[in-house]
Structures are given as C-alpha cells and as structure tokens.
C-alpha cells in the first residue's frame, strides 16, 4: 500500500479524494458516488476543482477506533429558513435518511415540501432545502447519497421563492 510523504505545505483542504470527506477508508461504492455527484452550481463557471498533490489517505491511520471517530465528528448544523426570524440547530446523526430529515424540517419550520427527483429537484415546492458543504458550495439536499451528505453538510438553508427556483433549475 503506497503512501506518499507529506509535503511541507498542507494542501489537504483542496484535495480531491476518492472517498467520503472525513473518512479514511476508500470503499468502492463511495468512489462511484463521488463520480456521480453532480453539483448544481449557482455560477456558470466551469472551473475544475483544483487538483491537489495527492497525499493518499491511509486506511486505518491514525489508529483510532471507528466508534471514537464517529463520535467525535461534529454533526450539529445550523438550519435557517428564508423569512423565519429564528435559527435552529440539529444533530444530523439522529437521522438515518433524507425522508426523516425532511420530515423533521417540515415540522420545525411549518412548511410542506414536494417530492424530490434527481432530474427535477423539488419541483412544485414552495421551498427548497439547500446546504453548504465542506467545500463551501451550496447544494440541493438530496443530490448526494445520505452518508456523504451527513458528513459534509455544514449548514442548512431552506430557500423560498425565486431564489429557490433558480437553484433548482440550474443543472
């Protein structure tokens, strides 16, 4: 198993890895999901993600039990809704999948959301749930597999009105 020595400069933040952000294990299915991930961008720029010098993630290093790793990952995220005067905090780890999360959001902010489809997003809803991921990009909730979402989501924002439609249709 090859690994490369660390450079002086830590370019980890810009690294394009095959694998979930924040995890060390490279699983086949995660590689596939990464490739499939279609970020819906606001901007029309076609920048590629900056290519990193690869410091390959080493499986099982540092030697910390996965139980501990999972526990230490910060999972409280702020949730805001356009027009609502309050912010909430939720623990993403308490939800197993998107339907559970969306149901909770619906309860919290008193809205109803339409069906999610990969092609059309939340067409027909008055609101659109979006989130900011570790790279700082704003994505549509539901675009990536749940595990990837829950470990990369930094903040949730429920958008209303025309902003929502713009994001939704920017494929």
């Amino acid at each position, binding site marked *: 198993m090859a*690994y490369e020595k*660390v450079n002086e400069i830590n370019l980890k933040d810009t690294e394009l890895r095959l694998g979930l*952000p924040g995890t060390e294990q490279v699983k086949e299915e995660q590689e596939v999901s990464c490739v499939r991930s279609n970020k819906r961008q606001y901007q029309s720029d076609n920048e590629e993600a900056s290519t990193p010098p690869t410091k390959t993630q080493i499986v099982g290093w540092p*030697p*910390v039990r996965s*139980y501990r790793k999972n*526990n230490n990952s910060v999972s409280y995220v702020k949730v805001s809704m356009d027009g609502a005067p309050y912010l909430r905090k939720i623990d993403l780890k308490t939800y197993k999948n998107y339907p559970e999360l969306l149901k909770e959001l619906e309860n919290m902010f008193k809205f109803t959301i339409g069906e999610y489809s990969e092609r059309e997003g939340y067409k027909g809803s008055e609101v659109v749930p979006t989130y900011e991921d570790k790279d700082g990009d704003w994505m549509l909730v539901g675009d990536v597999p749940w595990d990837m979402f829950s470990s990369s989501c930094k903040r949730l924002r429920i958008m209303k009105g025309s902003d929502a439609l713009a994001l939704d249709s920017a494929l």
Partner: protein
Amino acid sequence: MNYFPDEVIEHIFDFISSHKDRNSISLVSKSWHKIERCSRKRVFIGNCYAINPERLIERFPSLRSLTLKGKPHFADFNLVPHEWGGFVHPWIVALAKARVGLQELRLKRMVVSDESLELLSRSFASFKSLVLVSCEGFTTDGLASVAANCRHLRELDLQENEIEDHRGQWLNCFPESSTALTSLNFSCLKGETNLAALERLVARSPNLESLKVNRAVPLDALTRLMSCAPQLVDLGVGSYENEPDQESFMKLMAAIKKCTELRSLSGFSEVAPLCLSAFYPICQNLTSLNLSYAAEIQGNHLIRFIQFCKRLQRLWILDSIGDKGLEVVASTCKELQELRVFPSDLHDEEDNDTAVTEIGLVAISAGCPKLHSILYFCKQMTNAALITVAKNCPNFIRFRLCILEPNKPDHTTSQSLDEGFGAIVQACKGLRRLSVSGLLTDKVFLYIGMYAEQLEMLSIAFAGDTDKGMLYVLNGCKKMRKLEIRDSPFGNAALLADVDKYRTMRSLWMSSCEVTLGGCKRLARNAPWLNVEIINENENNDLMERNEEDEREKVDRLYLYRTVVGARKDAPPCVTIL
C-alpha cells in the same frame, strides 16, 4: 500435597484465581490436572479460533465465567473485513446443549446476533453478567431478550459496540421483579430510550453502582436518575451541548452533591462549560475521568475542571487540553496511573496549536510518579523528550505513542526516534505493551529485542528497514504473545526464520509488508498447528489455483495464530486459510 483428599486440594486451588497460575497448576501432575479442570470456574480464551467450544466444555465442565476474544486488534482500525468471523453463536449453542451453568460472558470484538442473545437468555438460569466490548451484529431486540429472560441479571455492560437501535422498549423488558442490577451501561446506543422505564428500573435497583446512559438522556432525566441513585460509584452521562437554565442547573448540582460515593465519571459526548461545572462538588473524590468524547469543549474549561481532581488515577482526555493543560494535570494529579490523550482534530488536520507535543508528555512524566500506562497521540516528538520520560518513569507497563504523521523524525534533530524508544525499553524493565511510531530504523528493534524482556504485545507501523528488524524482535522478546505489523518492509526471511516461535505466541498480524504468497504457503506447510490466513478483499480468491508466478505476489494482509482445532469452517470468501 498428594496425601490430601481431592476436596482439600480443590479448596486450596480456589484461592488461586489468575489464569496463568491455574494453567501452571494443571501441568504439575495428572491428578492435579483433573482436580484443577473440574473445579475451574473462569476461563479466558484470547483467540476464539484457538480452540472450539466442545473441547472447552469437555475439559472444564464446571465453567461459570467465559471470556472470548474474536477479531484481531487491527479490526478496530478498519483493517479487517466485516465478515471476517468471530461469531459467538456456536459457543452459546454448545454451552446450552451441554447445560453448562454459565453465569458470566465477556466478549471482545465478536459478532453477536439477536438470535445468540435470545438463546443465551433462555439457556442459563443463573446468568448474571454480560459484558460486550467492540462487538457488532445485534440490535436492541437482543437486549430486550436479555432483559426479559435473565432473572438474575446483575450486570449489562455494553462498551463501544455497534448496535442497531430499533428505538424500542427494551428497558421496559426488565421485569418489575428485577432488582439485582449492579451495573448498567448502554452508552453506545444511539437512539432514545424510554426514560420513564429507565427511572423506574434505577429506582428499584438499590445495589446499582455503575450507570452509564447514552447521549439521548437529557439533563433533567439525568438529574432525576442521580437523585434516586445517590449510591452510584460510576456514572456515565449523556450529551449536553446547550447550557442549562438556572433552575435545571441548581437541581443538577443538588443531585450531584448527594452522590458522595461517585468515583468515576464518563460520557459527555458533548458538554457545555456550565454543565460541566455542576460536577465540581464531587471532583475531589474522582479516581477516574473520561472526557475524551467532548470534542467541542475548550482547553481552559477542561483545565479548570481537572484542577479540582486531585485524586485522579485514570484520565482519558482529548488533545485539546494542550501542553499547558497537561502541565496542570502533572501538578494536580499526583496519583495518576493511567493517561490517554486522544486526537481531537481527525478530519481537518489543520495546523492545530492546541494539540499536544513532547512538552506535555515530559511534564506528565515529571509530575506523576505513579504513572504506568500511557496512550499518547501527538503531532511531534524528540529523542531527548523520550529519554527524559524514560528516566522519570521507569515503571511503565504500557507505553503507546502515536505520532500522527507516519515516519516523522525527531523534529529538532531530524533523526530517527530509535534512541528515544530505546531509552524507554531499557529503563522500563516491566514493559508489557509497546506501540511505536515516527521515523524508525532497524535499530529500534535491536533495542527492543535486547531490553524488552517482559514485552507481550508490540504494535509496529511504518517502521524498520529490513528483515533484521523483525528478526531482532522475534529472537529477543521471549514473552512476546501478540505482534502486529503494518506498512513495514519485513518479508519472508523474517517470517520463516523461526517457525517454532509462533508456538509461544497467540498471533501475528502483518499487513502491507513484504511477505509473499509463497512464503506464507511455506510457513503453513512447516507449521500445521498454525492457521495461516490470507485476507484479500478485492476479488475472487481462489489463491490455490493460481499458477507458480503468483507465489511471488505480495500478501496484502496476513494473520496467523496457533490453534488446536485446525482451519476454521466459517471463513468468508475473502479469507484463504493455507
């Protein structure tokens, strides 16, 4: 002794409880062997595949307490496939069939199913104690059977297991007549529990000494629990990321003050500073403190807390405490025996100013004369520091140092850390467990082989230059039992040099090293009393059918262990037993 009747000899043996001693007694003579085995109550099996349940029961018919360990240690770090093995079910089936009067079962790194737990709960009328550590494969339904059917259950201790939480009512399943609980730990459960059922259970368990709840138990519930169990000695709390209001805080503090027997505190998967301060009144009584899951709390709050803990013997903490914090520990906790400092920043790896360095380690070694066990994750180390630590603390039994970056040299001299670790093994004559890290050459292993006479377990990662390194260890460490190596350039020459050495060891793990399939095959041929397992996760694994050329192919993961029952039958496709 031969003139005494058997019952007298048996009575004398009753005073001998250590497994090693009892094993020795059984070797003295045939009659002692028989008396010993018929009276033996507690058996420890470090590798569940070294023997099978039928032979165990045949030898020890009076078995009451069984400890079993399954997966190899590196399974903790995702290096062993999930389906590898370590199933407890056949053991429970056999014990039930033979009507063994089992009372205690302790499992580590084993696969446990709900079916197993159900069978366990129905088969042993006197069952008292279930301890599961790092196990997986079961759900809260299994716990419900144990709660419902084990009428004499005293201890249910679940440590760091992967349990599928059906958010059901397993706590409700303890019958009203169940009042014998002394220990209940469900801290690893992720879902919500029935708080009312929990409170009723605690209220009717006057002998409850240890209670560890999970993160979903809110503060007011904790307060009520502590109020009805002021006799608690060991408490694990939940997750309290929001500051309590004034009233809740006062109630909490009042409840805590009543717990004058409290000696051990853990949990805190998150804790707001004010909440933590509610525990100040009992800090001075604490002998054990685990704050290693509270990732958000800042160093200064930790320091303030620890300043009150003058009697601490065991401390598990995050590196967010910093070197400064460790200096405070060193000046406050003069009774400290065991310290574990875990890394807090596993994901971002930004340059973390508050992580710990060699400075903290030296401070601890200087301030805590009783320290004998340490696990220390840090970002840098020096030989000078290790040499000082060795001089300050010659009493180490366990010394595990993990420098986060592999192959990192002494950051002041850019040299390898051979001399530093050499000093440790030379000074600490009682050292039984060692983990090394950083830049290391074959020389460190020369030192280990020369000086570490009591060493039983050694963990090596990204170290050494040639086969000589591994050979120094195999030849020198007479008491070696478990050797685990990853990403180090040791190959067939070292593996095959002394096959009989593996008779005296429980197991050897080698992953991402230089051993080849050919070497492993040769070993398996020369040592039929070993199970030589090749773990290869990637594709079809008909290794035996491959042609000659593949003998030179490097083996990704090798795990070998002595056994008296030959190749196991439950290996998954990714494991080939040569």
